[in-house]
């Protein structure tokens, strides 16, 4: 029953933990939600979802699970942990039962989930221990948890639109919205503060503390200075096809500027060749040879390229392919050069990921980057930051 709901949420990729699930059970036992499904929705959300960017995912999962359910009679009455354990035990082999005490709940739930998956994969027909005639345990019209009254087939039982069906939190979903603030949060993953190097800074608190402890004899304490040691080299595409993404890139840029002390940035158009520039209005007057840039900034810099990588393949693969000027070497060669110098590198692409397969140039560049191209969404940014931290 409720445990299925929990597993359903896990299957929907919500980061729910057993600890939180037990908290929900406890809350139900305290009768915090009455018989109404609305209350149950709010209560389970407050227990299980800890970030508004997951509200929408939760709404969808909740809707799919309780599709057609109008009421949960007596749900609050008896879901003691003991009952739960009994249910689990019923479904475990004797060996697993023996392991139960040792493993702890999280592990156990995982295994439980595996069992469900296995069964679904192997033979749709013969469910032994779920006992529903083998329908899918998750999702629409599938297995319905015991103790919950189902609306049945008659559509007349359906109530009006539920809170979760409004999808009010849709625009908080992290694959959709990406504002400056969100970008900052994501970029912060890159920040690694460390106390390193020689003692540099007077540790005032330490000094006072030790001096007082010494009954007034001055005892000076020093400590290494704390600083953000991450260095970032950022290249931004400001070409024509990027116009649609200007706001996003601006936000990305302003967030990056405020996050990193060591941020160097340059612009390019479509693909990178022998020159980049820093001031777009003076792009023809003031160019920086890429060789010089690479020479100046050491390989401890992390490399981030932002661009839609949308162009004719010719612009990447052939000398003279640039739309700006006659380049002697192909863009691909320059990209490779950059990657050789900066092992920690990613390409961020504002185009939706689902379109990538249809654009040859995106595939080419993603290949050159060894698959390190990420969409410019919060989730993509987080993947990218993780990659850079490797």
């Amino acid at each position, binding site marked *: 029953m409720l445990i299925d709901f929990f597993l359903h949420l896990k299957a929907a990729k919500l*980061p729910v933990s057993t600890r939180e699930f037990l908290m929900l059970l406890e809350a139900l036992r*305290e009768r915090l939600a009455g018989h109404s499904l609305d*209350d149950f929705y709010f209560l389970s959300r*407050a227990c299980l979802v800890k970030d508004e960017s997951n509200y929408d995912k939760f709404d969808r999962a909740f809707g799919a699970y309780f599709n057609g359910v109008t009421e949960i009679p007596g749900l609050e009455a008896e879901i003691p942990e003991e009952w739960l354990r009994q249910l689990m035990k019923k479904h475990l082999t004797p060996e697993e039962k023996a392991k139960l005490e040792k493993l702890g709940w999280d592990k156990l739930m995982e295994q439980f989930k595996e069992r469900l998956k296995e069964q679904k994969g192997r033979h749709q027909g013969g469910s032994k221990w779920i006992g529903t005639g083998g329908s899918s345990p998750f999702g629409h019209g599938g297995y319905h948890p015991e103790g919950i009254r189902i609306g049945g087939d008659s559509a007349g039982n359906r109530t009006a639109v539920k809170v979760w069906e409004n999808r009010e939190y849709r625009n908080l979903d992290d694959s959709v919205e990406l504002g400056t603030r969100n970008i900052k*949060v994501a970029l912060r993953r890159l920040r690694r503060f460390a106390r390193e190097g020689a003692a540099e800074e007077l540790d005032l608190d330490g000094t*006072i503390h030790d001096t007082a402890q010494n009954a007034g004899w001055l005892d000076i304490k020093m400590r290494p200075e704390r600083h953000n040691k991450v260095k970032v080299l950022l290249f931004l595409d400001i070409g024509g096809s990027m116009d649609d993404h200007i706001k996003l890139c601006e936000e990305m840029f302003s967030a990056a500027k405020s996050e990193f002390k060591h941020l160097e940035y340059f612009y390019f158009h479509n693909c990178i060749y022998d020159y980049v520039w820093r001031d777009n209005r003076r792009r023809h007057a003031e160019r920086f040879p890429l060789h010089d840039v690479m020479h100046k900034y050491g390989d401890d810099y992390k490399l981030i390229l932002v661009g839609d990588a949308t162009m004719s393949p010719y612009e990447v693969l052939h000398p003279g392919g640039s739309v700006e000027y006659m380049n002697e070497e192909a863009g691909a060669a320059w990209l490779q050069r950059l990657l050789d110098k900066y092992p920690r590198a990613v390409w961020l692409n504002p185009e939706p990921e689902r379109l990538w397969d249809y654009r040859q140039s995106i595939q080419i560049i993603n290949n050159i980057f060894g698959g390190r191209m990420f969409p410019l969404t919060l989730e993509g940014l987080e993947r990218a930051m993780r990659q850079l931290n490797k």
Partner: protein
Amino acid sequence: MRFEGSNTYVATPDLMLAVNAAITLQRPLLIKGEPGTGKTMLAEEVANALGAPLLQWHIKSTTKAQQGLYEYDAVSRLRDSQLGGKDGERVRDIANYIVKGVLWQALEADKPTVILIDEIDKADIEFPNDLLRELDRMEFYVYETQQLVKAKHRPIVFITSNNEKELPDAFLRRCFFHYIKFPDSETMQKIVDVHFPGLKKALLKEALEVFFELREVPGLKKKPSTSELLDWLKLLLAEEIPPEALRSKDRKVAVPPLHGALLKNEQDVHLFERLVFMAKHNR
């Protein structure tokens, strides 16, 4: 103990449920939401409604978890020791230099208290983790005086965040969580009602329309929040602006009166005025 809302604060049913879950199960409630959605005020209101003292802890970037428990005022002790004289006695007992923090005050109180840890995301990334144990157990040890401080009553803990930093998972798992959605028009009417009972319906209707339209203007650096709406209404009332003035009769776009109260950012004001200007000339 149950929180049923109050006549000075509008709480939606989902918020009320989260608050009561936190009260009943004695776990912290983490509240997020745009600035001005009443996060800070909530703790005050709940404390008020429950008749519990409110202990506020406003977090800054330099705040350390330890300060919520206690601080050892070594500087005073040092000074006293240099002065000598009648303070000599005092210096010898370290307990005289222990300053109790918010959590300590809550734990030793004779009745349940409400603790507000406001804007937790301002602090260092380690801050929430440093408080885990204390919030879980509601007890801690004072090394200087070798004393165990234990809760007489578990306090009700509210924590607010503006989302400037991510909070650690271990911390989140121990909390109930509620995100205060920006009030819809209906809820906003109730909020305004609480602050300006008896406000003329016509004025409220026009004002809310202007307010919500303004929030939709793309590219604003800072969308007007509840506080700005309330400030603006106060001005409209003081200046005795009639409802008709909020929208011109010919239905033409216009800059609403006293809009400076709604848009606090100069860039936003310029942007808005430019948009209105353009809209006028496109007709």
